[in-house]
């Protein structure tokens, strides 16, 4: 497929891999965190690690939007969906996320009407088609998906679709990276910056990372060659003694972001004082809620919610995994009590979650099996 295959070229990957290896300082170990769940998926899906020397370790970061949703917010969603006449809509990734009272899939089996949509606009369409029902969009995601929710709210306001509302769980990436850098038990050397988030916020918001922590950050695209090139750019910075924000994903990301998207975000959303992140705890100014002018579309105002904080299961170490302190397989319940079909922690749910990615793809990644089968 044009404009896709070019970014998956095995020969170019081999060349890049050799150049990366040449840039490695002998005896040094490099820990590079890919912030975004999409990166984690690509790394495992294409076997990116196979082109990297063993001295470069990729650490999976907190940027899986499903993985950071706390159980209490899942229960709140189910509570909304179980009210008479409500249709709850959400992205497919949310359907299997376990709350304190099961997942959305299980709530459906008990009689709730929770529907998977591909866009918040689909939720709005369902609201128009069902004027006698309350249609709620369970919004998740970082700055990547927040603009589409914002535009949907604006359209709902414009068209007066009053039976539509948003249960907002949008989070912002910068406070999460701060929380990780403040974590005492972690040593990182560099970041692969979240490419899709950066299409919205640009690269400037990361400048404090090299400035205050001396760590390079390269905004990276999502094709396997994007990731290899980004690692190359990081290694080049090390070799040249630099620590800067650089943009590998220039075909999509503008250094100053997308002003139109930023404008609608500023109009429709306000920062929450606090938001609880799965595994990371409560982080100040790390999430969005609807601004007062659009409060009538806020499901949290429209419905009475239990709003109960559900403690993460004791055995679950999602927090340590999200912070990159533990590798997925180092979690006590990984692969035994917690599996993709019966996840305890959210990292095991979405294919972008570090644990699910490792479980599904990763176990043999380190073995470097020779697979030139059919030559």
């Amino acid at each position, binding site marked *: *497929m044009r404009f*896709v295959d070019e970014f*998956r070229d*095995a020969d170019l*990957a*081999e060349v890049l891999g050799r150049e990366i290896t040449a840039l490695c300082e002998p005896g040094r170990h490099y820990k590079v965190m890919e912030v975004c*769940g*999409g990166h984690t*998926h690509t790394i*495992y*899906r*294409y*076997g*990116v*690690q*196979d*082109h990297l020397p063993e001295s470069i370790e990729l650490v999976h970061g907190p940027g899986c*939007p*499903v993985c950071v949703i706390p159980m209490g917010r899942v229960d709140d969603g189910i509570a909304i969906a179980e009210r008479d006449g409500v249709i709850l809509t959400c*992205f*497919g*990734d949310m*359907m*299997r996320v376990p709350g304190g009272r099961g997942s959305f*899939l*299980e709530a*459906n*089996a*008990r009689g709730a009407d929770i529907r998977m949509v*591909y866009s918040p606009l689909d939720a709005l369409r369902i609201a128009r088609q069902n004027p006698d029902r309350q249609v709620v969009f369970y919004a998740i*995601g970082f700055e*990547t*998906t927040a603009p589409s929710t914002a535009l949907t709210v604006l359209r709902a306001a414009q068209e007066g679709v009053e039976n539509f509302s948003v249960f907002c769980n949008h989070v912002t990436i910068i406070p999460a990276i701060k929380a990780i850098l403040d974590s005492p038990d972690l040593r990182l050397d560099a970041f692969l910056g979240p490419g*899709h988030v950066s299409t919205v916020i640009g690269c400037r918001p990361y400048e404090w990372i090299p400035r205050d922590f001396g760590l390079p950050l390269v905004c990276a695209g999502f094709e396997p060659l994007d990731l290899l090139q980004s690692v190359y750019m990081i290694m080049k910075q090390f070799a040249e003694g630099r620590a800067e924000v650089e943009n590998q994903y220039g075909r999509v990301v503008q250094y100053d972001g997308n002003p139109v998207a930023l404008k609608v975000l500023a109009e429709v959303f306000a920062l929450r004082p606090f938001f609880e992140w799965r595994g990371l705890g409560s982080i100040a100014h790390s999430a969005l809620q609807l601004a007062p002018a659009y409060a009538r579309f806020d499901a949290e105002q429209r419905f009475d919610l239990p709003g109960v904080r559900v403690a993460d299961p004791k055995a679950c170490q999602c927090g340590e995994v999200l912070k990159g302190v533990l*590798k997925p*397989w*180092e*979690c*006590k319940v*990984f*692969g*035994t009590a917690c*599996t*993709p*079909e019966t996840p305890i922690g959210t990292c095991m749910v*979405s*294919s*972008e979650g570090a644990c699910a990615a490792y*479980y*599904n*793809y990763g*176990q*043999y*990644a*380190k073995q470097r*099996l020779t*697979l*030139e*089968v*059919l030559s």
Partner: protein
Amino acid sequence: MTRGQVADGVTEDQVGERIEQMRRRPQKFRDERITMAHGAGGKASRALVEGLVVPLLANPALEQLSDAGLFAAGTARLAVTTDAFVVKPMRFPGGSIGELAVNGTVNDLAVSGARPLALTAALVLEEGLAAGALRTEVTAMADAARAVGVPVVAGDTKVVERGSCDGMYVVTTGVGVLEHDVALSPTAVRPGDKVLLSGTVGDHGIAVMLARGDLDLEADVRSDTQPLWSLAAALLDVCGSDLRCMRDATRGGVATVLNEIALAAEVGIVIEESRVPVRPEVTGAGEILGIDPLYVANEGKLVAFVAPHRADAALAAMRALPSGAEAALVGEVRAEPPGRVLGRTGFGGHRLIDMLVGDPLPRIC
């Protein structure tokens, strides 16, 4: 605590070993209710069948978990299979529920090595279904049955209240006869065998997903629904007992079939992903939806495991038929790692190809 160990001194390899043991344990069914995941053809479906249904109906033929149950009648060896069709929407580019209901059951017999002899059909109809739609689907069944030369010899009709089913559901049962002296079985698969795929993957599942219309995607993707008996017969003729096993890659796609065989035969299977035929439109839709075509349902494709020295002849025999024109050798069987499917990616890396967990859900970013 040293690197590579968790608190209680477990290493990564031991964790991997623990996971392997878990995968091999008999499946248990613990869910309180049926969810849509149980119908998706992945791990939840497997738990439902192996953890609830099979233990209660226990018998040796069923416990094979094959596409069809085999039994003897006098000197004849027969195969019987049944399948329910609940596809929504009823009609989609390239086919419809009636055609699917005939081909699906014919194919379960075919990959079991049985020449289809006769079918039965039960129609569950929703109150309010347009007579024209019903006539169209029964005609589609008749045409599909005629095309493979298998009569529908018995049937049943039931009507349920409006809202109790989506237009119509069809259940077909098929009986076939095994005429080749070949014992097809996953346990016959051994290291060195080649993996052949009869054509492009993902066409049916993507065509139906697009036909549902809620994706607002347009692409010219047609279901691949077609009978596979002539293809299966050609393989049986050419390979004899060098043909180890065949499966039609329906729900859960080629990835699920490969995992089932790897687990049953205790072998490793390695696939070269660049050799798996996928139509560009299917790749494109899969890219947009975040779905891997290897996990998408097919309704006219089989996977065959063939002894290495017979692979070229088998491939030529498949390619000589319209239903196998795009057949390809996609991988091979290894001793290691037992029970696992690995893919060599087009990027020059490798990955694990596990069973599907739930619905192939699109990723959001």
